[in-house]
């Protein structure tokens, strides 16, 4: 807890030191001019100024070249190499183990009634493209990002310097080019799915019953239940955009942004990435291993009626009124987009 608080304090300090130098520089310059007369050779004001991170004069051109001492570097190092790597890694591993344990105890969530064989369209092709372009770019970024943060401690001792150097080089380049693809697909995804992720009255029931995750009871919901909505707003919208925005700061150093901004962006990027990766393990689990039939909607676009009824009853009821079922749809695939949804 104490270390966590230290980390928090350092974060605040890192944010503050962007404003601090502006306040001090002029005072210190005049103090040094006075000191030069009163106590020559005592340059205390200069050394104080040097630590303030202000831009001084230099004939050499470059980002922050006029800054003699980079004040945020030590803080960034302490945060990144300390609590961020340690607790981020621990939380990621613990969550992965917890999901493994949940699978062992609860097992796969099966449908309580047999499949009807009648299919109902859940995601059209545009929605699936939005989801999979985001999912695939996310997985590439996750793998390459993990190599760059933890590889030095986990992979390097195993595969050696030459191989790890090549791998890290590949990961860094792939990470930098796939990053903007992820941002684009996140934006596309948000546009496609935001209308079905707004608050609906039935969500209160889901919260009360915690989605039936423990009891195994089926809680009715519209197209998306409250768990999926939380993942949409917290995971995709908030963390997805945060991780993308901070990533852009790091990805485009050609705008000559200073070190302080990049140190802050790096901490925001790594922390938000670690949270989104940890949470994504839950999403990936429930979408594949954890629940019978869940992957079908994103794989083919169609889910079995039994699955729809058990997991999204209100959506199913509304869709049944207007939608034509798979036998019709498969005959004329062009009209599949007209399948109505709530």
């Amino acid at each position, binding site marked *: 807890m104490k270390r966590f608080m230290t980390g928090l304090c350092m974060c605040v300090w890192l944010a503050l030191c962007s404003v601090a130098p502006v306040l001090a520089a002029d005072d210190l*310059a*005049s103090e*040094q*001019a006075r*000191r*030069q*007369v*009163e*106590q*020559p*050779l*005592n*340059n*205390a*004001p*200069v050394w104080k*100024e*040097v630590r303030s991170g202000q831009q*001084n*004069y*230099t*004939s*050499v*051109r*470059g*980002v922050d*070249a*006029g*800054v*003699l*001492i*980079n004040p*945020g*570097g*030590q803080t*960034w*190092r302490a945060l*990144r*190499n300390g609590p961020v790597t340690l607790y981020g890694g621990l939380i990621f591993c613990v969550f992965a183990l917890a999901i493994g344990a949940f699978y062992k105890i609860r097992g796969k969530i099966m449908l309580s009634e047999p499949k009807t064989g009648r299919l109902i369209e859940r995601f059209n092709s545009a929605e699936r493209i939005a989801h999979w372009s985001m999912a695939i770019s996310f997985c590439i970024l996750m793998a390459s990002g993990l190599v760059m*943060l933890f*590889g*030095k401690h986990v992979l390097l001792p195993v595969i050696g*310097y030459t191989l*790890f*150097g090549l791998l*890290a*080089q590949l990961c*860094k380049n792939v990470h*930098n*080019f796939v990053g*903007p693809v992820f941002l684009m697909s996140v934006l596309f995804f948000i546009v496609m799915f935001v209308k079905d992720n707004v608050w609906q009255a039935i969500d209160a029931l889901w919260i009360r019953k915690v989605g039936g995750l423990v009891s195994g009871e089926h809680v009715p919901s519209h197209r998306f239940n409250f768990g999926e909505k939380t993942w949409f707003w917290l995971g995709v919208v908030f963390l997805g955009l945060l991780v993308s925005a901070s990533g852009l700061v*790091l*990805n*485009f*150093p*050609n705008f*000559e942004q200073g*070190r302080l901004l*990049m140190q802050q962006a*790096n901490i925001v990027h790594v922390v938000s990435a670690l949270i989104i990766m940890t949470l994504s393990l839950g999403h990936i689990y429930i979408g594949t291993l954890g629940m019978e039939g869940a992957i079908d909607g994103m794989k083919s676009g169609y889910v079995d009626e039994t699955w729809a009824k058990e997991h999204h009853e209100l959506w199913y009821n509304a869709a049944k009124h207007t939608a034509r079922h798979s036998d019709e749809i498969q005959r004329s695939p062009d009209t599949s987009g007209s399948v109505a949804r709530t």
Partner: protein
Amino acid sequence: MARMKFICDAERCIECNGCVTACKNEHEVPWGVNRRRVVTINDGVPGERSMSVACMHCSDAPCQAVCPVDCFYKTEEGVVLHDKDLCIGCGYCFYACPFGAPQFPQSGAFGLRGKMDKCTFCAGGPEADNSEDEFRKYGRNRLAEGKLPACAEMCSTKALLGGDADVLSDIYRERVLKRGKGAEIWGWATAYGKPEQKPAEQPAKTGEKS
């Protein structure tokens, strides 16, 4: 074994940029890369001070600590060097370094930076001493030739010193003694009272720089 260090005497540096030029010439570094630079604090204001700065070859080097591929290493003489074959150009060493030493030959979109370049204390890199490869990647290896860093050797006022820390300490200690303003260098006047309190004891002249 000697521990190699740099020291820059702020009372002597005249901002001639001789060290910067010497370094560029010695190592034939690419355009845009400056392993050493001179920073002037309070430029144009009475009491301005200039400092020549490059990699200081830290004992607990932040670049080494944050490098995701662990490409830094220390020589027996305490010089911090890195392996450009491993470097991925992520820029983390640049975020962490207190002195702004790491340089990148490019600055493009998509994190394009090229391999990091920095002061080697004129000690080359992991390649064979004074080999062609070593020169191309890291510049000249003067230490292997029995010479000290070019910047310090070039310094016209001998503000910048580079070499065995014990020798440098002796030189600097002697300078401090000869400047003859004793107590004020240590900041005693700040801590124990302003000179106005005992004006008679203060010498009239502002002190000779040696």
